[in-house]
Each structure stands twice: as C-alpha cells, then as structure tokens.
C-alpha cells in the first residue's frame, strides 16, 4: 500500500529506487534459504551512507521494522523478511572507495561483491582472503553481517580477522566509526560485536578490510578415498603433522554426483565415499616438499588415487566443482536445506555416521560438502517442497544434525549464521542466562527491537513455542497426507497460517 511512509522513503531515495507494490517486492520474499519466506512492505535502494542513515532514522522513529540485504545469497534466512519489513537493499552501494597497497588496506561499500574486490586489486598481486563459495556474487557487507568463512579460512581466518574498521549506521540512524584501520581500537570491541551480528545491530556502509599479497606458489591436490574414515584420518594426520594447508575440503558421493552433472564436471569415480581437495601455499621453494608430505599421508591412509593439479585450468575446475556444489543440488532435488554445524575434526567419521542414520530415519537424502580442515560440516538435506510435509521433515532432520554436532562438542554454525533457520537451536546451545546477556546487548543498540527482529537471538519462550509448533505441524501433515487431493489447497492454507503466526511474533517483538 502506498501510504505516507512510502512517500517519506521516496522522498529520500526517489521514485525509481523504492519498490512498494506487493507484486514488485515479491522477489525479495527470501534469500538463499528458501524454506521460509515473507513479504516485505517495501524495498529501498540507497546509494550513500547519508541515505541509509536517513532511511533508518525515519523507520526507527516511526517504529517500522526493517532489515538490510546484500546479494541475498545467505543460507540461514538473514535477509528474509518475516513479513511487513522494509528491506534496505545495499546492492547499489558497490563501489571500491580506496585502496592503500603499501599498507594493504581497502575501503569498500557494503554492496561490493567479494570476488570483485579481489579482481580489482589483482594487478598489484593482492587479494581479499575470505572466500565463501558464493564469492562471485555475495557482498562484503553480507560477509560482514554473517562473519562469512570460506575454504581458505583454515589458514587465513574468517571475515572478522580481515575487517579492521567500519562506518556503521545504528538502528536509530546515527552514524559511528568503529575499529581502527591500524592497530587496536581501545575500549570494548564494538567491531568484533558488529561483525557477525546478522544485521540486527546496525548497517555497515563503509568497510575497511585487510588485503593480502598473493602467496608466491600454490599446489592443489585431489585425493579419492574408498572410505570416509580414511579421508578424515588423513585430514587429522595432516594437521597433527604440523602442516597448515590453505584449505582441505571434502565431498561425499552424493555431492560428487550433483556437481558432475553440472557445467563443472570433474569425473569423480562413482564407487568412492569421499574426495579431498587439498591446497598448500607459500614460498615457491617450499610448496613442493609440503605437497609431497601431504601425498604421502594420503597414501598412508589407503588413498585410491591422488593427483596434483598440472595447470591453472585444472585447479580452477576442481575449485569450481567444490564451490558450485550447493548450487548444483538442483540436479538431484528441487529444494535443499544446507546445515552449517562444526565439530572437532577427530569426530568426523562418527558424526557422519550419525548423519547417515538421520538421513535414513527421515527418508531424505543428505549430501555432505564441507571444510574438513576446520571441522565445518555442510550437510545438504534434499527435499521437495511440493510434497506435503517434506519441507517440515527436512527442517527437523536438519535440526537433528545440528544437535548431533553440539553433542559432539561443536557448534550449530561455522559461517552461515543463525538467521531464522537455526534460531530454535540457539536454546540447545546456550542456557537461558546466556541468551539473556545476548538480548541485553541487542537492546543496547536497538531498544525498540525492530531491526531484523526474529533472527539470531530467540525471544524468551520462543524456543519452546517453536518446538511445540513443529510437533503440531508434523501431526498435521500426517493427516493431510491421507487426503492427497486436498493436499495442495491445504499446503497453501498452512503456509498462510504460518506466515500470519510469524508476523504476530515479530510484531510482539
């Protein structure tokens, strides 16, 4: 509905940079996590810090819920409206503001795409290290919000290790600078708090990042294992041997099948359980020796075949095959939920067995693609949302996977964030007292509780409600399944109910 609030937003950004008609905002109903969605009230496209500040000030003053969005590739629903929010789309704020090659710093706007930064500084042999699989599309602002990781974070650290300062628009529209481009910023670590806050505490509009010189040399190997246990023992042994590879990635057979059907075909054998992609980097004088030791360790653990990339093209293909694995799931299934649990490396085999058990119990296929080096699992629960009840079953299977990770001494997320998706598991990981401290932090920044509400930190009692609701829905679907002709109509009705329920929750928040 065009109302005075829309007029006010149009006043700030102009008619062309404000979408408000319900059918025009539909494309913003979800991000890369598609299991839940909601319609925004409007989508605005600011182009400067000042515009973002004006928008936030207006919305906060009028108590209109809002949330930021980058490229919308997030996998936990961080940029998904729960219903009725204004989406602040930062995609047009995509400039590289300054680069200081001598001091290895760059200042970027939040909408700049991760890989675009690397491309624009490549002529000086520099790059930006955090490399999420979606790096060719995801934005640095989004990486900031989610504290994104990536394959090479094993050696180089995640986003928070590469952001040194930021200009941030706080929920009420005031603008502050946090962190320090060089050296430590005294006082509380506000930057550390903001990185990974999933857009619940403010919007970074200028981000100062560390850039790195490219390593002198790289060696990349592909190793095929008949048994997952051998692959995971190899990973552990490599780390224990004191080698710090740039990356160690693993994929299971189902994931291999998906990517091999895509444009990024490698031709994996169909009778191996796991493939490892191992990269070492450093001085030219050392990489071959290190790679030789890695190969030796693979052999020790009965690798069937291990190959070192002979060309940049070969290396690029292997990496594409790994990085495109999520997106290639469409070759196997119309929908998936990707989980992001972290476990101690040494318990890989055991947890993977548990996941296999969950897969069988729920009757849903689960593919595994993950950062083996740091124990960050990405089980992909495959489902078909057109089959009544399957989406809900997938969400529950995913939840069980996360609990298995926590039980093994790990965490519910390594790099994708909590968002909407894992909010129910927060209470499994933290006690009520611990969550209360988190809520207090949120309230310091956003006293009205309107900025990306319903994400990351569960409201008191919410976890119990969610659990209860899931049980009811589960029973509900079983009844529905016996009336297939009515199913489709009912799915719609139930979806509408769910959205309405969510809306109520967020309004209460």
């Amino acid at each position, binding site marked *: 509905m065009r109302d005075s609030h829309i007029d006010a937003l149009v006043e700030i950004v102009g008619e062309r940079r404000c979408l408000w*008609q319900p059918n025009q905002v539909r494309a913003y109903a979800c991000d890369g996590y598609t299991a839940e969605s909601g319609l925004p009230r409007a989508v605005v496209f600011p182009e400067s810090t000042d515009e973002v500040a004006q928008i936030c000030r207006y919305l906060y003053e009028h108590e209109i819920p809002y949330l930021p969005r980058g490229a919308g590739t997030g996998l936990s629903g961080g940029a998904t409206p729960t219903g009725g929010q204004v989406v602040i789309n930062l995609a047009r704020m995509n400039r590289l503001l300054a680069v200081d090659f001598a001091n290895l710093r760059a200042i970027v706007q939040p909408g700049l795409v991760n890989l*675009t930064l690397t491309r624009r500084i490549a002529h000086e042999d520099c790059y930006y290290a955090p490399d999420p699989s*979606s790096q060719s599309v995801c934005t640095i602002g989004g990486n900031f919000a989610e504290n994104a990781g990536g394959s090479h974070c094993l050696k180089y650290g995640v986003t928070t290790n590469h952001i040194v300062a930021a200009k941030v628009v706080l929920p009420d529209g005031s603008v502050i600078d946090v962190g320090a481009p060089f050296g430590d910023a005294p006082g509380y670590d506000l930057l550390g708090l903001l990185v990974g806050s999933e857009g619940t505490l403010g919007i970074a509009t200028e981000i100062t990042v560390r850039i790195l010189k490219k390593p002198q040399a790289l060696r990349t190997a592909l190793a095929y294992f008949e048994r997952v246990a051998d692959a995971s023992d190899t990973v552990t042994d490599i780390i224990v041997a004191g080698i710090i590879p740039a990356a160690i990635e693993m994929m299971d057979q189902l994931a291999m099948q998906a990517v091999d059907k895509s444009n990024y075909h490698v031709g994996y054998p169909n009778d191996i359980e796991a493939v490892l992609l191992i990269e070492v980097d450093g001085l030219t004088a050392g990489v071959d020796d290190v790679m030789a030791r890695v190969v030796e360790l693979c052999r020790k653990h009965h690798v069937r075949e291990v190959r070192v990339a002979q060309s940049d093209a070969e290396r690029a293909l292997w990496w594409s095959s790994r990085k*495109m694995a999520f997106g*290639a799931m469409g070759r196997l299934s*119309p929908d998936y939920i990707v989980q992001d649990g972290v476990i101690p490396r040494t318990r890989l085999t055991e947890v993977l067995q548990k996941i296999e058990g969950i897969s069988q119990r729920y009757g849903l296929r689960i593919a595994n693609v993950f950062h083996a080096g740091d124990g960050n699992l990405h089980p992909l629960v495959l489902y*078909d949302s057109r089959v009544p009840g399957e989406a809900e079953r997938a969400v529950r299977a995913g939840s069980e996977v996360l609990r298995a990770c926590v039980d093994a001494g790990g965490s519910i997320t390594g790099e994708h964030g909590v968002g909407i998706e894992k909010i129910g598991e927060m209470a499994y990981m933290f006690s009520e007292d611990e969550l209360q401290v988190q809520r207090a932090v949120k309230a310091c920044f956003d006293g009205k509780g309107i900025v990306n509400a319903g994400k990351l930190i569960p409201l008191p009692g919410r976890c119990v409600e969610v659990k209860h609701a899931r049980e009811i829905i589960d029973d509900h679907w079983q009844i529905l399944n016996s009336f*297939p002709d009515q*199913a489709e109509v009912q799915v719609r009705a139930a979806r509408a109910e769910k959205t309405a329920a969510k809306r109520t929750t967020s309004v209460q928040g």
Partner: protein
Amino acid sequence: MVKDSSSMAPRLSDFCYPDAPEEDKYSVCVHCGFCLEVCPTYQAWGDENHSPRGRVFLIKSCAEGELPLDESVIDPVFTCLDCRACETVCPSGVQVGALVEEARGQVFHARREHGDRDPLMRLFLRGIFPRPGRLKTIRRLMRFYQKSGLRTLARSTGVMRVLPPQAREMEDVIPEIGRGPAIDVLPTVMVPKGARKATAALFTGCVMDVFFSDVNEATARVMVRNGVEVHVPREQICCGALQVHAGDRDMAREMAKKNIEVFERAGVAYIAINAAGCGAALKEYPELFHDDPAWHERAVQFSARVRDITQLLVEVGFDPPKAELPMSITYHDACHLCHAQKIRREPRSLLTSVPGVDLREMPDSDRCCGSAGIYNLTHPDMAGELLERKMDDVPEGVEAIVMGNPGCMMQIRLGVKKRNQQLRVMHTVEVLDLAYQREETP
C-alpha cells in the same frame, strides 16, 4: 525420496495458454543466486526482479498462481536480454532462456486476447520476417534508398526525425547493401575442388542476408575452400528467433516446420549457420514442440545437424591460411554463441591460425553488447549502456573487432560510429576469407 506429483491437486496457474513455462524447468532452480553477477540487467540496477534468479522466481510464482501475469512479471521478463550468461554459470543447469521465452509466449497470447495489439510489432513478426519475398523487397528498397541518393536527401531534409532516436541511430550504421541476397546469388550447389570432406546446407538467415550478404558469400567460399560441398536450399525461410524472443511461438513453430522440411529434403550431413542468434534458435527447435511428439522428433533430428560455421570448420578440419594477414584484432563473444551454444574455443582457434593475426582478448568479452535481437530498439537505454561498456573494453590499438553474429555487428558498428573510431567490424569468416584470398593473389 520419490517425487510424486500425481498426488497433487492441479494448481491454479496464471499461465493459462498452451506451451507454458514448464515446472521441470523452474523447479530446478535452488535459489543460490550464483547467476546474479553475470546478468547485465542486475549489474546495472542491483534489483532482484531484474536478475535471472528473480525472473525464474517470478515465473514460478506466476505458474503457481501466487502472482498474476501483470507488469510485475511482464516487465522483468521482457527486460531480459535473453543473453544466457546465467546459463553458463548456473550449477543446476536452469534453462533461464527457455523459461523466459515460454513466459513471453504467455504474454503474447494474453495481449492478443485482450486486443492489445502492437501493429508495428505484428507487421515485423508476422508480415515481414516469415515471408522471404517481402524481406527481399525491403532489401531492394534499402539498396535503392542508399544508391539513389535518397538516403542523403532523407538525412539532409531532416525527415528522419519521425523515427525514434534509436531507429535513427541504427539507420545510420546500415552497411552498404550488396548486389543481391546470397540465397539468390550463390549457386544451389558448390563443389570443392579436391576431396569432399562433408556436405552442408547453408542457412542464409534474414538479417544476415539483408544487411551482410557478403558474409554469407564469404562463408560459402570458406567452406568450399575447406572441402565442404555447400548447398543453398532456396525455399528456406527466417529461423524464427525474433518470434521466439517476442513470444510469438505459434508463428515460430510454423517457420520451424517449414525449415525442417526444407532441410530434410536437402539430404546433407550438416546445416551450417554463421549467425549466433539463428544458430541457437535452430538448435533449440525441439523446445517449440513439447506437445507434438512427431514434430519434436523431427526437430531433434534437424537440430543435431546444425553447426555454427566455426564449429563445422573445426569439426571437419580446416586448412590454416598460408598467406600473411598482419592485423591486430579483438574478439567479442556473441551471447548466443558462447552462452547458448558454448562455442568459445573454435572461433579463436580459427582466428589465431591465420599467420599475422594478433588476437588481443578484451576483458569480459562474453558480456552482452546490448544488441539482443531487437532489444536495442525496445530498450534503448539499457542497450546503450551495455554498448558503452563494450566499447570501453576494446583494447587500445586493435584494427578490428571480430564476432559471429549480425545483430552484434550492427550494434558494435553503432558503437564505433558514435566514438568516431577507425575500427573494422568483421565476422570471423570474413577474416579467414580475407586470408584465403591473399593466398591466391600473392
């Protein structure tokens, strides 16, 4: 997990005409968004609605009855350049182009039903392109217009101002129209001197033969020079790509049937085409016959024989020219060659086989130039922006920009003209042809 759609109630789709976007195509999209950054319209606006993922989502929403077939769907679907860059990166292999074309088909039907006729569009889609006779008449008129001094007169009197600016710009860069269309000028069969490696029928195309019949003649010469027996079926007609792009799928089907019949009769191993847009359309004929198994099968047989000229030459084996052609060039990947047909290597290996040719790659050579069929006439702003970016990417000091599609040739001629540059715009086979001709006259 078994997909069981049989147990589902029928959806109330807002696509109510036959040949609608297929569920099997849009359900493959898992919404990863890896396509966003390669999409020219998303690059320009940063709006999800104008991204491949957004378009597929809107089409899906419409198919599932969540959105009506109104401007919120129509605008993104028609603002798409159909460049297929998204298909190159999509890990799940979503056929975005086919979905967009099918959705346009629905819009075309809906508009006709509501009496919302665009007479000019209708004239082009139904009155001119499907009729070779009328096309030739237009060609003759244009040649007369150029040769008789009428062009000079029109320009000097300012009568051109009745045309929209984008059409006026295009008029400006129409090449000198040659003596006659290749389809009339070339012999029906051309036999190579030495051993015959293959037989191929030349698809002469409409735009190519009206504006660039020289390229068709060069194509025939290059094929014959490389041992291919060339046939030129006289009854062939325009491929129907423009109709498919505009959503007039019924007309496109009729044209496809005609061509399938004509080329079945030709009895040749290959169908050779030098226009990327037409090549992609010919290879995608089966998409038009989902509801007609008999014709679908014939379309599959037909498409299996279609080769882009560069693909054909590499496949049958070509003789690298022996004469020197000192020339520095850059190569522009036409979308319908690199994205739709996955042809990138072949033109480059032909070009670099010519002694003296120095191929300097331009950055993002596979980004759309904005031509996109008649897109530069329907969406001049976006087309203009893309043309600017393309011209910015041309490396300093090259003498020619080479490509494999007449639409791009027209568009880039416009870019060269606007910037007052001394740059030749050439088709890949023209470079080869030039080199072969130098062999004869040392």
